[in-house]
């Protein structure tokens, strides 16, 4: 059964049809790429999937439940984690606190526990801290736990964002341009990292990316979006040779790559 199933999704902002008739099915464990020229509606799709926008048409099913119209935080708790295109960390807080916030529901204690500092407060706090540190460990960031997030170098901020998304124990991870602003070396590291994450945590990943070499190497299946519509879908090989894709978007890129 599909982990995520999107049927006929549409959303227009005034006269602009940002997404129209978008369909998507992701099986557990798949790594799917979503590409397309600027303004094609990729991020809008992410925002609809995570509940920031309400679709005007269509339904979204996640893990067998209908999540259309649910609020953002509920969708997150059902198991969809995400990162943002322009990094959105809690800048003034420490690296550890950034991840701890995302473990809201890893350990739950009531207001009473918090105010009276009961035993379960200390137990759950310890659990949350351990869990957050273990997430940082994946990215080798644990030794920077006490630093203020905005002081991290760019690449580490991106990694911290992924660590934070992982803290909520997602089944599906949505990565919005994870390689944006990274140099080739960092991009290669990211590639390895995403593969490792997927293997170690049996994650299903949907990613938006402009770096074609990354997408082609990483994804098994690619969706191409243009003007809010899916214009092609298939394996990297098929996408590379699809005339409509080349026309819409890849033409220059392919010749560049061949150079």
């Amino acid at each position: 059964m599909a982990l995520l199933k999107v049927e006929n999704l549409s959303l227009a902002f005034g006269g602009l049809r940002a997404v129209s008739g978008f369909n998507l099915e992701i099986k557990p464990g798949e790594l799917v790429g979503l590409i397309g020229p600027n303004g094609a509606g990729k991020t809008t799709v992410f925002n609809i999937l995570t509940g920031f926008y309400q679709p005007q048409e269509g339904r979204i099913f996640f893990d067998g439940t209908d999540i259309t119209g649910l609020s953002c935080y509920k969708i997150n708790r059902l198991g969809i984690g995400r990162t943002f295109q322009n990094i959105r960390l809690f800048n003034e807080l420490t690296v550890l606190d950034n991840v701890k916030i995302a473990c809201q529901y890893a350990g739950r204690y009531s207001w009473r526990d918090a105010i009276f500092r009961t035993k379960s407060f200390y137990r759950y706090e310890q659990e949350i801290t351990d869990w957050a540190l273990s997430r940082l460990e994946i990215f080798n960031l644990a030794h920077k736990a006490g630093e203020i997030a905005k002081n991290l170098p760019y690449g580490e901020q991106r990694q911290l964002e992924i660590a934070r998304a992982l803290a909520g124990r997602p089944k599906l991870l949505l990565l919005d341009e994870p390689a944006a602003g990274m140099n080739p070396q960092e991009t290669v590291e990211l590639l390895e990292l995403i593969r490792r994450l997927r293997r170690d945590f049996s994650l299903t990943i949907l990613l938006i990316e402009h770096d074609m070499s990354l997408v082609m190497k990483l994804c098994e299946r690619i969706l191409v979006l243009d003007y809010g519509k899916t214009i092609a879908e298939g394996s990297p090989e098929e996408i590379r040779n699809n005339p409509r894709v080349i026309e819409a978007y890849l033409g220059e890129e392919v010749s560049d790559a061949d150079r």
Partner: protein
Amino acid sequence: METQAITGEKPKAAEKWRRHLLPVGLSFLLLLNILVFMEHLGLEIVSRYYKGILILSFINIVLAVSLNLINGATGLFSIGHAGFMAVGAYVSALLSLNMGRWGFLSPQLQTFIQFPLVLFLGGLAAALAGLVIGIPTLRLRGDYLAIATLGFGEIIRVVALNLNITRGARGITSIPNHTNFWWAQLFAVLTVVIIWNIVHSNHGRAMVAIREDEIAAEAMGVNTTYYKVLAFTIGAFFAGVAGGLFAHHLSYISPKSFDVLKSIEILLMVVLGGLGSITGSVIAAVVLTALPEVLRFLQDYRMVIYAGALIILMNFRPQGLFGRAEADLAVLKALLKSRAGEIVKSRSEKRGGNGGSA
């Protein structure tokens, strides 16, 4: 570690200073308690005038720390705190005046039970007001929220001015003055401890996340609506309690006591102490309560110097005295731990039968 290396000695000095803040503050409080307690032994050291300032300081601590939960921790810019205070003050004052005499209890005992109860009910009424104002204004952000809360404060004042039960502009007189040093201190300490514990918990982290980036917070599973409304409600509750203390301290309240200037005064304490720093709010509340009194010898120039001091301070430290830093609890924790350690040690010694000669 790196930041320290870059900026050199200064932060280290600040660190040290912060570490000593709590022990110094607590010892000072202890000394005050001893001095005030002397009067029960027939030795009045602290005069009524100074006790009055202390009580006002405690009330202002409650107000500043509770506003800090809304403005500093959650980042909702509210300037209607005097409105919540007014609700608490009127409700508790009217309750106190109308509860009558309970025949089955001695007057002292009745006060002892009735006063906290009345304060609590005043707080609840204010919390309800917080809930009512919180829900519709949640969509507003920044300046717009500030204007809405400002409007709310004015509404409360005008309502109090026009209702019969609040006796209009004449205000309510002869409220029993139950608020003494001990009650004020108790509620100030309770407020600080409770709000500190809230902020330094999962719930507080959710609120801080809203301040930092609401969209990211929502995407990380924080129920932003819930925490925003709750920050408002909890802040309003304590403002209501402070209002009750205030009413039972001056034994007279009128709508004029809760105008915009009062809201601004509380906001000033929070901003001066540092948005988001509970320690800062406490210290700023004490300083700003005491400063006008200390400056009394300047007579007519008093308010000029007061305002000047504020301007200079904000110029040199726009983030407030403390920024977001808090007093270091390490000393307290170490103390508690060593105590616990000693107890465990002495117990094990007893069990071992080695005798407790020391």
